[in-house]
């Protein structure tokens, strides 16, 4: 498949579809993006399997995160994560200064209230791909100034 814009359009339509089906079910309540997150989850879960099938095993959790920030992000979002921070106790913060789905949305705080819709899918993708690499986690996004976006990954240990 040659063109990247196709994925952008598809993503936009998925967002619209999910919001519409939400509206039918619970009019008036808060926006529920869990379905969107789940679509991302299943996508991430499958794609990572195909990407890593011929790669050596990752050394540890940090090594996996680095892979997500570089190769994985490049393959999906055409750029690397700009900044990776961790407290070495299971919390990672991935910062992307111009996140692909937000770059054409706004440059600043306009439409900030709509922005979570456009990152929920990606939160799911991250969670799905880590889940398939045996790291269970919670992924949330923090948006302050578009098009930059921070993804918080909280690894769950049992």
């Amino acid at each position, binding site marked *: *498949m040659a063109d990247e814009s*196709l994925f952008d*359009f598809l993503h*936009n339509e998925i967002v619209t579809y999910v919001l519409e089906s939400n509206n039918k079910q619970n009019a008036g309540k808060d926006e529920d993006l869990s379905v969107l997150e*789940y679509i991302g989850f299943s996508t991430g879960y*499958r794609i990572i399997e195909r990407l890593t099938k011929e790669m050596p095993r990752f050394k540890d959790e940090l*090594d996996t995160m*680095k892979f997500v920030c570089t190769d994985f992000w490049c393959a999906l979002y055409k750029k690397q994560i700009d900044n990776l921070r961790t407290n070495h106790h299971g919390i990672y913060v991935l910062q992307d200064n111009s996140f692909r789905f937000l770059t054409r949305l706004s440059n600043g705080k306009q439409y900030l209230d709509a922005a979570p819709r456009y990152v929920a899918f990606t939160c799911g993708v991250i969670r799905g791909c880590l889940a398939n690499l045996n790291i269970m986690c919670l992924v949330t996004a923090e948006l302050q100034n578009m098009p930059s976006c921070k993804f918080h990954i909280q690894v769950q240990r049992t």
Partner: protein
Amino acid sequence: MSRSTTRFDVKKVNSELVTLTYGALVAQMIKDLDNVDDVSKQLERLGYNMGIRLIEDFLAKTGTGRCLDLKDTADKIQSAFKMYLGIQPNVTNWSPSGDEFSFMLDSNPLTELVELPDDLKSLKYCNLLCGAIRGALEMVQLDVQSWIVQDQLKGDQNTEIRVKFIRRLEDAMPAGED
């Protein structure tokens, strides 16, 4: 070998990303809606919405002008297939009156990695493509109908998408400017 040297084939990954995302969406729709026909309808509508946006992207990137006739249109859609899906379908089966034709796809990126279970045999999985064609052509003032005749997912040799020209849409006056 350091890991930063591992590079993926970006085009292939992008293609798989679209395929898998689309698959996840269809699965979700089947969960949401009880009726398989409704899912097909939704997919067509979704494709339509994509089509109305895709056409702008297409015209901006290729700089093509207005179509002279339906043959020209068919050729341009063919090049759009090449651009967005990386495949080159054949344009065949012209009707005698020249207002209907088919795209033959011997491979379909959307259905790679896909298998339909028996209870979903009536699902029109690729209806997105029909919708996209309809939406895109509507934006250049061509009213068409589009549907799937053959589907590899249902055991056919090729995937065949039929397009039928209905009418030419006229420029409408902007509201309030009589």
